[in-house]
């Protein structure tokens, strides 16, 4: 696929950030920092790599994307709306009673492949999809975005072993490595030490990139596709709260939404 224009992507990413902040602010709760760190990652997947049909979200030949760090769903919702899976107007209903845009992703909203949010489970779900595609001799590719705090969960490492055991080269995981989790810095909460070495030791191909650089993201997705006989993980260095100065790199912004005056300031920065 031809790579989209980087300048245009950057402009659109800015708009996505505005949408995300606005919907979170209207909802009055949600995960601002965690959503802003994965904008370029999710947007690149849907702009460049994934095969899908927004008008036929359950099209058999589609690729799959699992947002294992389900709390980052405002970003996924904004991207899905941008590509026409549902009307952008629906973003206003985030976290409201009766909405399909639940606080964490739920099956039923067009474009959502699995209900996630309880951390640590998404990579296993992705493995199941990758194994199933292989069984059906389909060239489906499966992508899974993990949080860096999320990989504290033991199940992630169980899934990592499974993917390597079954040589799932149709699977690509991505870590949103923003170095912060609710309680603070990863190294203080529970030091994960050297992630690259860990994943390599678990039998994965590892690519490390800047997770806000569209060129690096798209290149890494291309490279992952060419690797045979092992799964790939892209460790994407990101900034929690990326794009808004007073939200960036602040653990306290993990799980709160901007108040109206904060939203105003944030939108001004994203003009």
């Amino acid at each position, binding site marked *: 696929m031809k790579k989209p224009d980087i300048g245009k992507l950057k402009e659109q990413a800015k708009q996505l950030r505005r949408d995300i902040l606005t919907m979170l602010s209207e909802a009055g709760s949600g995960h601002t920092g965690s959503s802003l760190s994965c904008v370029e990652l999710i947007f690149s997947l849907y702009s460049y790599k994934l095969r899908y049909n927004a008008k036929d979200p359950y099209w058999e030949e589609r690729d799959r994307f699992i947002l294992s760090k389900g709390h980052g769903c405002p970003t996924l919702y904004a991207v899905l709306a941008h590509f026409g899976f549902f009307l952008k107007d629906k973003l206003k209903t985030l976290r409201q009673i009766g909405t399909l845009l639940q606080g964490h992703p739920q099956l039923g909203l067009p474009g959502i492949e699995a209900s996630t949010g309880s951390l640590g*489970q998404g990579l296993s*779900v992705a*493995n*199941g999809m990758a194994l*199933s*595609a292989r069984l059906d001799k389909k060239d489906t590719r499966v992508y899974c975005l993990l949080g860096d705090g999320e990989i504290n969960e033991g199940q992630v490492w169980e899934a990592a072993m499974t993917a390597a055991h079954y040589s799932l080269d149709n699977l690509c995981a991505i870590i949103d490595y923003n170095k912060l989790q609710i309680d603070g810095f990863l190294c203080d909460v529970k030091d994960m030490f050297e992630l690259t070495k860990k994943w390599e030791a678990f039998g994965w191909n590892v690519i490390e990139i800047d997770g806000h650089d569209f060129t690096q993201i798209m290149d890494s997705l291309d490279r992952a596709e060419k690797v045979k006989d092992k799964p790939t993980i892209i460790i994407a260095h990101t900034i929690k709260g990326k794009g808004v100065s007073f939200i960036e790199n602040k653990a306290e912004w993990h799980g709160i939404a901007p108040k109206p005056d904060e939203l105003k300031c944030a939108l001004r920065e994203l003009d």
Partner: protein
Amino acid sequence: MINEDRSTWKATRDGYGKGLVSLGRENERIVVLSADLTESTRASWFRDEFPERFFSFGVAEQDMMSTAAGFALSGKIPFCCSFGVFASGRAWEQVRISAAYMNININIGGSHGGITVGPDGATHQALEEIALMRLLPHMSVVVPCDLIEAERATIASAGIKGPVYLRLGREKLPLITDGYEGFEIGKAHIIREGNDLTIIACGIMVYHAIKASDSLKAEGIGAGVINLHTVKPIDKAAILKAAIKSGAIVTAEEHLIACGMGSAVSEVLIQEVPVPVEMVGVKDRFGESGSPWDLIEKLNLMPEDIVIAAKRVLKRKRTT
């Protein structure tokens, strides 16, 4: 008539193994996932015939359950195999999200349910699965009483849209449902009707319920027996009909009394036909090592224990 010749008895886990193989032959969408207990759960019977549709996870039940979701979301019909304690307990939260919340066709075969696991002791004796699983929205819970019923339940569960938990046992049991053709998930099997009380049982305790009913009959007491193989969705109509007809209920299960099958039956009765109920089951304790039938006796799960409960419930019935 129950065949008391133990050489004819078979374990429900064997019925599960047979069911998996028949399903595998008929339906290419069936996949079997196992967490290192492949022989014990009889998943090996499927593996040997369909190795390409068998997936091994090692000792990682949580990963297995969520992976099953990936299969189900891709149009497959997964069966997850482990011991009951691990399938329902260790991976409970994965089952909650990946099977129940998503309401997809994931089937869980939890073998080695109950105290009759025997010598392995408390860590491996699941006495909580009915409680843990029936609590989850969308989940069906089936406790077969013999090999034939286990095979039918396994086959039927593949056709249920949502998740199903099958509680299976290691101990060989008489073929109670031989000749009975009416098996359906959610529909209780009425073994006999009684005017004085009704014993509602599941799993291994169906056998003991029949024996208890026989001895009560010798004393002139008419005790009906219901094989409540499906604890959820519960067959309200059958339970209420028995309560109205006989006016007293005894429940019997190889499971903790708390939140088990008897509790599920009581939830129905208390709201609609509040007749006296006595519950036979394990009383707020863990299991221990021992031979299966010695443990059944030690934990008061014998036919005589059901008879005692029946007499208690009759006394209460007369005084209310």
